[in-house]
């Protein structure tokens, strides 16, 4: 009996009277994670180039997040595209994001550094491949198109300071808001060696990017309107700089396992009388020049989560560019695809994309089958 009592006392001392032993997460540690997407694409012949098929590592991102205390945190996002290899001259590596954040509460947050601004809804996640059902994204969000389209002409690609948050307004509805400021479009940024105190990466424009978004959200709905103003660089056409306004609206609705995502975007540069005269003169000599510099883009995607592991979707997008691109007739894209998630961190995707442009100057009608595997780690 004495032995039994002794064993019980020792047992109690070892196990202790406190909280049961359990792995404790250290939330202040640097949290490193990322994802990659590898693809195989078949590109038919067009004026853009001959027919080609290729495997490629479309994208890999390495991210680090750190919580310093109850208010301050930081985030870094390194992005590698198209099988980046500096020795072989493949792809690109870029610092996509790097910011510090002060969070008072979900009502008020401030981010400073180099960040993706809150403009419409796809912009902030356009490169988060595990989140996207697509392999090839809607036109202006697709890096494969950015050789042909200057993404800055459509979207505010980066900002440097943002204040944002969400305020409860109704039973289960939040009002979301964001206001941001950043450098002008990348053509104003020094990419080589600057003069005097100017170094690469510095903004040389007279103005900055200003913008914001307001919207409403609940767990099955999110919608909002966005706006920016900055300067558009048309120096290469002798028109100088002009103020540019972007207006956007986004909508997400989910009913049971079916969801809809969509956006519209209107870009309206404001030309002075002198700039209008120069533009008209350029148009006199060059038939591919459109009637103004306005651009309009929209897309809509309908997605059905058949099971936890399987989804299918269809999507359409349309782009109208009236400027110097010779694509006034617009570019249309329709696509359908699906994905299968064998385990939580892996998605196997398949997609067929049809891109067409009826322009007499740059006629395009491409059908692209593409498959990919997206891995999150």
């Amino acid at each position, binding site marked *: 009996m004495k032995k039994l009592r002794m064993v019980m006392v020792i047992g109690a001392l070892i196990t202790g009277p406190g909280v049961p032993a359990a792995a*404790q997460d250290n939330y202040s540690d640097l949290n490193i994670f990322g994802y990659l997407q590898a693809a195989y694409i078949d590109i038919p012949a067009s004026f853009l180039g001959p027919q080609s098929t290729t495997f490629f590592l479309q994208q890999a991102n390495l991210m680090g997040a750190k919580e310093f205390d109850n208010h301050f945190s930081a985030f870094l996002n390194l992005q590698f595209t198209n099988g980046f290899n500096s020795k072989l001259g493949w792809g690109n590596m870029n610092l996509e994001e790097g910011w510090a954040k002060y969070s008072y509460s979900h009502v008020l947050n401030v981010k400073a550094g180099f960040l993706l601004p809150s403009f419409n809804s796809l912009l902030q996640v356009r490169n988060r491949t595990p989140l996207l059902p697509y392999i090839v994204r809607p036109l202006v969000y697709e890096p494969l198109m950015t050789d042909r389209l200057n993404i800055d002409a459509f979207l505010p690609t980066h900002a440097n300071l943002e204040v944002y948050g969400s305020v409860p307004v109704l039973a289960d509805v939040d009002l979301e808001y964001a206001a941001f400021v950043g450098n002008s479009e990348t053509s104003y940024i020094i990419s080589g060696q600057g003069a005097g105190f100017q170094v690469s990466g510095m903004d040389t424009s007279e103005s900055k990017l200003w913008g914001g978004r307001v919207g409403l959200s609940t767990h099955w709905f999110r919608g909002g309107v966005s706006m920016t103003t900055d300067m558009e660089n048309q120096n290469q056409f002798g028109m100088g700089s002009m103020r540019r306004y972007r207006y956007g609206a986004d909508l997400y609705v989910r009913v*049971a396992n079916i969801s809809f995502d969509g956006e519209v975007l209107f870009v309206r540069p404001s030309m002075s009388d002198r700039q209008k005269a120069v533009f008209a003169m350029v148009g006199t000599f060059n038939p591919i020049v459109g009637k103004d510099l306005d651009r309009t883009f929209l897309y809509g995607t309908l997605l059905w989560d058949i099971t936890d592991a399987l989804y299918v979707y269809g999507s359409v997008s349309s782009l109208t560019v009236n400027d110097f691109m010779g694509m006034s007739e617009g570019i249309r894209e329709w696509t359908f695809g699906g994905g299968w998630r064998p385990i939580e961190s892996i998605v196997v995707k398949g997609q067929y994309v049809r891109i067409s442009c009826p322009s007499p100057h740059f006629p395009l009608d491409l059908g692209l089958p593409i498959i990919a595997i997206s891995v999150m780690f």
Partner: protein
Amino acid sequence: MKRLLLSALLMTAFTVMARAQLVIIANPSVPVASIDTRAAVDIYMLTQTKWTNDEPIRVFSLKKGTTGAEKFYAALNLNPLALNKQWLRVQLTGEGRAPTLVAEDEIVARVAATPGAIGFVDMARVTDHVKVLRQVTQ
């Protein structure tokens, strides 16, 4: 007599099953005594990230596909697929951390060991090391 015993046994089993009640639990450091459904939804949507004393909320969930998880998210009227996407979005945009997914037999210990933690579990598993914030109505 046998029939009577069987009936009594079945009655007891049904009573126990009926009593199986999910509750929202929290670490004792959490500065609230109860939360409403709206707050629970906001916390699991990762839109509410702090307690009233500024302490970050550490969210724990039962693993996907478990009966407890399915019942809990159904009670909050949250679609598990949409919720997963929201968690992924928050994590990949650097806005926060996705909830830690744990098994039913370890969630109480994990919540008890993590300051600011919240989770949910069958009431029968609750211990003195956590506090109950709300009974989940199913």
